[in-house]
């Protein structure tokens, strides 16, 4: 018996195999490259969004404290902000807390005093000092020695605040920038492009 062989199921020739392998390699390489690029882009976008959220958080933290601040001063390099805020809540170690431990966490009743500078409202003989500073990749908020990391990113987050004191009011301008992990060479421009600005007035220093 003679087997019938169909040309349609015959094997590939060497040249066909070489061509198909070459084409497959190119397609596979392209697919892998695309995949890697896609993953990198995803990482970049994810990181960008994440850092942007931290920008918002830094500004929200700063604005909250500036608004309730009594005094705000910025460092020469504009990267550190120190402010005094009323000591509204009784904290552990305060005289009231020592006298009555259950008072911890409770608000104080304000007192009023007339000074040579005019009337003054006090919640406590002392005030709370809040400092914002940069430490490595982190932005720190220090309140009476207690440090909280409010933002941390490898994207070089840089907050800059300017304290502007007018005749009878005061406000702080803050900008926060970062350097995205993927840049196209124009690092300065790319940092500038991430700028986020905010202005907060000290509510305790009002006109009139």
């Amino acid at each position, binding site marked *: 018996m003679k087997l019938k062989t169909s040309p349609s199921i015959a094997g590939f020739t060497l040249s066909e195999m070489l061509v198909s392998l070459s084409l497959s390699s190119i397609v596979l390489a392209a697919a892998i490259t695309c995949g890697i690029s896609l993953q990198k882009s995803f990482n970049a976008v994810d990181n960008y*969004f994440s850092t942007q959220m931290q920008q918002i958080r830094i500004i929200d933290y700063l604005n909250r404290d500036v608004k309730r601040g009594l005094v705000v001063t910025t460092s020469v390099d504009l990267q550190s902000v120190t402010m005094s805020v009323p000591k509204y809540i009784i904290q552990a170690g305060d005289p009231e807390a020592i006298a009555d431990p259950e008072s911890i966490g409770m*608000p104080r009743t304000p007192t009023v005093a007339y000074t040579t500078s005019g*009337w003054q409202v006090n919640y406590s003989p002392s005030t709370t000092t809040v400092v914002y500073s940069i430490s490595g990749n*982190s932005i720190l908020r220090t309140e009476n020695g207690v440090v909280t990391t409010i933002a941390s990113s490898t994207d070089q987050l840089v907050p800059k605040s300017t304290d502007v004191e007018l005749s009878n009011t005061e406000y702080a301008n803050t900008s926060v920038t970062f350097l995205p992990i993927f840049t196209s060479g124009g690092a300065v421009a790319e940092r500038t492009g991430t700028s986020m600005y905010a202005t907060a007035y000290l509510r305790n220093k009002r006109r009139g």
Partner: protein
Amino acid sequence: MRISTQSFARGNVLLCVLCTILVVSLIGANVLLNCITRYNVASSQVRSWKESLDAAETGGDIAYAELRKTISDPANAFSPSNGWTYSGGAYANSPVTYGQDNLRTSSRVDPFYYDGNGNAWYRIRTKGTAPVLGLKRVGMDDRMGPNTRGDSLLRKIDFNYDHFVATYGPNGDGVGQTLVPVVDANGNPQPQISRRVELIAAPMTPFEAAIKAGGTFYGLGSAAYIDSYRSTPPGGPYDASVKTNPSDPRYPDSRSGTVEINSSVATIQGSIYGNLYTNGGTITKKTTSIFGIIDNNVPFSLDRFAMPSTAGWNYVSSPTMITPNTTINPPVVNGVPRTGTPQSPNYYLVTSFANNGNLTVNPAVIGGVAQETYLAIHVTGDIGQNTSSNPTITVPPHVHLEVYFDGNFQTKAENIINTSGYAGNLQFYAISPPTLPNGAPDPSVQQTVNLNSGGGSTSGFSAVFYTPSANFTINGAPDITGAIVCKNFYGNGNVHWHYDRALDTAGDAVDYRILSYVEDIR
């Protein structure tokens, strides 16, 4: 039999396509998930957090507006018709909903301090709430460190229960903690963020500046000056040399001769040892002679002045007219001269003050010792009617006189005799003229206060004037200790004007200002 292998080839292609779609879809879904998470935080949670502060501060504004009514419109202050109730020594309003995001705010107002004049200081505590729309999940960024919780440290979202009430009670004082579900206006569960602020509203006394003009200002003479001192400890009598001697301990009190002008029309001459505020003005002439701060962006408002309630005052029926020789001695009650008090002075209603009237007010004397005596006189007409008018008012030491007048005031500066030298002992209040039916000022009626220096060109006086509806004119170069609040101010003489910083705290409240702001961040 025929064997075909073509179906295998087709299946392989389909598998490859499906795998590719799967991979791309997974990547896309991951991207979408991250985007939604970020969007949820940025668009819903951050926005709600900011809006809740807006709502809290709006509640503060609502309460502040009611507080101001206690002076300008007492009958309608904290009115139940506006949702206010009074309980436990505090006013509270039912939540007010406003804005397209249905923000809610409520306030609680209670007096917590009374100053020496009996003026109440109020604490305004407000709560602002904003619904958190979008996905009901945290979605916060927790990548700050192992011991931190990212955004949740800053923005406290109440997903099911109000954490503040549950932990600290509704008033934040540790009383009445309970689980309160968070719901929208219709009672449906709705995550939300609430923020709370506490404001302190302080009474504004009438005489916080040397000159305060609600309208235009012209003055003073080119050689005039305005300075200040403090008559009460640690200060002392006025000393003209202090303002140019920084080493003098009284120096800080010598440069508060502030002028406040609520218009852009301000022509300043002479020297001002204090601040100068205008409302959009451009200071002209000798601006270099202003030794304090110049701020051309300080608007303010001067409300009409109404006769205060005399309900608690000690009415004395005589005299009712001031003649060329009228002397008021305190009434004797049960054999003892009544001194009155700042809150309850001896009160006289005078229907006529003669153009040449001479009024002398004596203190109560008990056991041969003059007592601090408090009087109020309400003149229902003019005090001096024309330029030849020469009414005189004499106030010896220990007398504290408040003169309220409905009409105009015209006399010579030298005829205002306050021998104590303390301006706060002689206070003039001009009651604003009636308004038109629509509440607007009647343009046909202009109240005036005219002071001429008279024969003794440098003779002056110690007194304060609160005349927010009156045009104030002063001619000549008298030496003045005191303060003036008026509508338009005109003065062309080389006046030496000394503002007494003790006036900072003198007089009844004419308005309120927010003196302190603190956010309860618990």
